[in-house]
């Protein structure tokens, strides 16, 4: 049984690709066979975050158009042998992806025995975002504690429950997971940032994880290593917890308390 997970948000720059890379890697660490697909046609970036940008030969659109076999286009992760990346095309043709084409690729991945397919959605609510969510069984809605991101994610939650295959066919609805990223407990305590509870109250859905704002996320993307593999970062551990929860395990939320600075730091800054 293949489970399709879309990582989406509406707003750009909130951490969809970072989350897709870490989620896919985390599922692979749990022994699952995983493919992660970049749906952002024209703006390929998942390959960079996964650190396989120089190994892209064929892409998603090539497979949809029959110019390459799926096996040729799937890039095997160099760290985990059960993890594969399907890169987005760099074409400027926005109609390069079709619903039938996407369905064909997903069906082929199912036939290949993949446990999970992670779909990294582009920002916005246009065709690419629609196709990324259309066939999903689970949705991870990435949200920042910031007004425009929260509003957009509410819009996306509405689309997930109306404009997807499961909704149209009247099947069990997509399982929605809210992931709060770039969370800064110190600013929340100071009343400068929406809290976990604020966001949950507004959207009427509880979080599946909270990823603290962390310098390690930029370092990870600089290096092309998903942050979940960074054992020294809270963000990495928070992603590991999130993956466990999506797999049905019970893990308490961590890293929600403000970090108290020591005396020297308080005096001299830092």
């Amino acid at each position, binding site marked *: 049984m293949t489970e399709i997970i879309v990582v989406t948000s509406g707003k750009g720059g909130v951490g969809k690709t970072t989350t897709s890379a870490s989620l896919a890697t985390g599922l692979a660490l749990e022994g699952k066979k995983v493919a992660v697909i970049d749906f952002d046609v024209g703006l390929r970036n998942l390959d960079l975050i996964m650190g396989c940008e120089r190994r892209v030969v064929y892409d998603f659109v090539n497979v949809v158009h029959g110019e390459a076999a799926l096996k040729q286009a799937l890039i095997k992760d160099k760290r985990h042998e059960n993890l594969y990346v399907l890169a987005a095309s760099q074409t400027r043709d926005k109609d390069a992806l079709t619903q039938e084409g996407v369905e064909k690729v997903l069906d082929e991945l199912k036939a290949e025995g993949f446990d999970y397919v992670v779909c990294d959605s582009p920002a916005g609510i246009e065709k690419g975002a629609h196709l990324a969510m259309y066939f999903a069984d689970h949705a991870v809605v990435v949200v920042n504690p910031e007004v425009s991101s929260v509003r957009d994610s509410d819009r996306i939650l509405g689309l997930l429950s109306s404009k997807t295959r499961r909704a149209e066919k009247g099947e069990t609805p997509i399982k929605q997971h809210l992931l709060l990223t770039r969370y800064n407990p110190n600013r929340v305590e100071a009343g400068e940032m929406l809290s976990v509870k604020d966001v949950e109250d*507004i959207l009427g859905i509880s979080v599946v994880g909270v990823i603290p704002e962390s310098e390690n996320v930029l370092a990870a993307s600089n290096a092309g290593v998903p942050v979940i593999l960074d054992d020294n970062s809270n963000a990495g551990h928070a992603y590991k917890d999130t993956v466990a929860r999506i797999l049905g395990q019970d893990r308490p939320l961590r890293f929600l308390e403000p970090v108290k600075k020591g005396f020297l730091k308080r005096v001299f800054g830092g």
Partner: protein
Amino acid sequence: MGILDFLKRKPEPSAGVAKERLRIIVAQERSTRGGPDYLPLLRNELLEVIRKYVNVDVEAVNINLERDSGHEVLELSVALPDGKPAP
């Protein structure tokens, strides 16, 4: 926070304002979601008509689309301002 930070003004706690604004706009957008695209337009035109007679605020007009089994009800409410009606 270092010594120099005392010279900088701290930002006002603003999360409460953010939450309140979001609560209102999200509720409003949910009420018209899934409805026909003309709803916002209808709302604006109604507002114009009402304003010919009474000076009401944008937020005074509330449109709600309710779906019951088999039929839809368009509910419209206008909160009139206190005081004397316009002449």
